[in-house]
C-alpha cells in the first residue's frame, strides 16, 4: 500500500461518523487528517493552510457547501486534488460526475466518490491523484 506520510488530508463533513470513518481510513494510509464539520471552519482552515488533498461532503448546512468549498480550494491551491464525497446521486436522482472536461469546469473537483467510501477505491483514486508527487518525493 502506498504510504502518504507527512501529507495532510482535509476532511469536511457534518456527519461525525463519516469524519471518523474517513479519518481511520486515511490515517491508516499515513495521512495526517484534519477534520472539519462545518463549511465555515473549513473555509477558515484553507485560508491559512494548503492541504495535500481535500475530501468534501456535498451537502452540509447549506445544500451546495461542497461545491462552494471545492471552488474555494481550487481557487487558492489549484494543485490540491479535491474529492467530493456524497450520497447525493443515489438519493435525488441528480447525476453528475467529474470525468469529462466540461463537467470539471463547473464542478471544481477531481473525483466524486459515493458514501460510504471503500478503502480499495480510496487507494486507487489517491494513487491516481497523488502518485506523481509521491514517487518524486
Amino acid at each position: 500500500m502506498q504510504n502518504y506520510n507527512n501529507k495532510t488530508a482535509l476532511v469536511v463533513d457534518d456527519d461525525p461518523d463519516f469524519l471518523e470513518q474517513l479519518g481511520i481510513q486515511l490515517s491508516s494510509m499515513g495521512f495526517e487528517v484534519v477534520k472539519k464539520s462545518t463549511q465555515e471552519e473549513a473555509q477558515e482552515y484553507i485560508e491559512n493552510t494548503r492541504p495535500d488533498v481535500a475530501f468534501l461532503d456535498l451537502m452540509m448546512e447549506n445544500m451546495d457547501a461542497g461545491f462552494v468549498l471545492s471552488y474555494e480550494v481550487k481557487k487558492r491551491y489549484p494543485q490540491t486534488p479535491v474529492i467530493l464525497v456524497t450520497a447525493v446521486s443515489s438519493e435525488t436522482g441528480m447525476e453528475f460526475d467529474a470525468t469529462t472536461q466540461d463537467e470539471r469546469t463547473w464542478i471544481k473537483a477531481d473525483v466524486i466518490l459515493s458514501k460510504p467510501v471503500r478503502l480499495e477505491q480510496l487507494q486507487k483514486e489517491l494513487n491516481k491523484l497523488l502518485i506523481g508527487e509521491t514517487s518524486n518525493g
Partner: protein
Amino acid sequence: MVELKVLVIDDEQGMRLAVQRSLDGYIVELPDVDMNVRFGVTMASTGEEGLEMIEESTPDILLLDHKLPGISGLEVLGELEKKDPDLMTVMITAYASLETAIVATKRGAFDFLAKPFTPSEMKAAVCKAAKHLILQRQTKKLQQERRQVRFQFLSVLSHELKAPLAAIQGYLYLMRDKSLGTDISQYDKIVGRCLARIDGMYKMIFDLLDLTRIESGQKKRSLSKVDLCETARTAVETAEPSAREREIDIHLHFKDPVFIVGDSGELEIIFNNLVSNAVKYNRDGGRVDVKIEDSEETATISVSDTGIGMTQKEVDRLFNEFVRIKNKKTQNIAGSGLGLSIVKKLAKLYNGTVSAESRPDEGSTFTVTLQKDSVAPESAGSESS
C-alpha cells in the same frame, strides 16, 4: 383581477362586433371562485384563421360558431382536441341539433349558445365557462403542489433513512478491512456508533408513523379529561435518566390539576418531545423548567432550557419536517428532525399554537397553548353523556 382572453370565431361580422361590444373590457365578479375577471376579445372570421390565432396565443375561452365557410366548427374542435389546449369552448349553433351537440361535447365543447342570443345570455354563458376554467386551473395547481410536496417529503425521507445506513455500512467496511488491527476491543467505539445510528433510525421510523397517523387522521383519538400535570410528570420521569447523566435538573412549576379534554397519548407525545429536546440540547449541569399555566379556555405549556439556543434564522426554520439545525453545537446530538413538526400537528388538533423563543448559547423556551375543550360539540356531547 384575472384577465381572460376570449376568441370569437364567427363568419358574421355583425355577430363578432356584437360580442366584442358587450364583452371587451367587461369586468365581472365571480363570487364562487372569489375573483374579479376582466375579459378581452379577439376575433376570427374563419376556422382556419381561428386555429392560427390559437396556435400563436391560446385564448382562455373560445366562442365558436358551428357553421363556418371553410372548415366547420366541429372540425375546429377536432383539431383542438389533438392539442388539448387549456381553454373552454362555447359552441354557437343556429339550429341546435342534438347530433351536433353530442359530437361537439365529445370533442370537448363545454357549453352551447343558441342563435339568436341576447348579450346577457352570451355573458352568462361566458361567465359560466370562466368560472369552470378558473376552478379547473386551481384544482390542477393544487394537485401539482400536492405532488411536489409529496415528492419532496419522500426524497428528504429517503435521505434521512439512507444517511444512518451508509454510516453503519462504512463502519462495517472498516471492520471487514480490519482497519484498526486485530484487537477486537479497538472496535468498541465503532460498534457503539453503529448501535446509536440504528437507535436513531428506529426513533425516526416511530416518529414517522406517529406523524402519518396524525396526518391521515387514522390514529383513533380516545378523548377524556386529562390532567396535564400528571402527563408532565410522566414525561419528566422518562427524561430523568438522560438528564441525570449530564447533571441537568428538571423543575416543575404548576398547580395541580390542570384538566383538558384530550387524548392522553397525544398529550404525552407533546410533553415527551419538548422535555427530551430541552435535555438533549442543554449543556451539562444545566436546568429545564416545565411550566403549565391554567386559564379559562386555554392551558399553556412552556418548557425552557439553558442550552445551546438558536439564532432567529434557525428558529424560523424549526417547525418544518426533517429540519435539524446543523451546526457545530448540534452535530453530536441525534434526532429525527420530526419531533417539533409532530408537536405542531398535535397542537393543531387542540386549536393550539406552538412558538419558540431562543438566544444562542443561553437557551430556548418552547410554548404550546392548547384549547382546554377543543372537541367538536357533537362528540363532546357524547363524551360527557
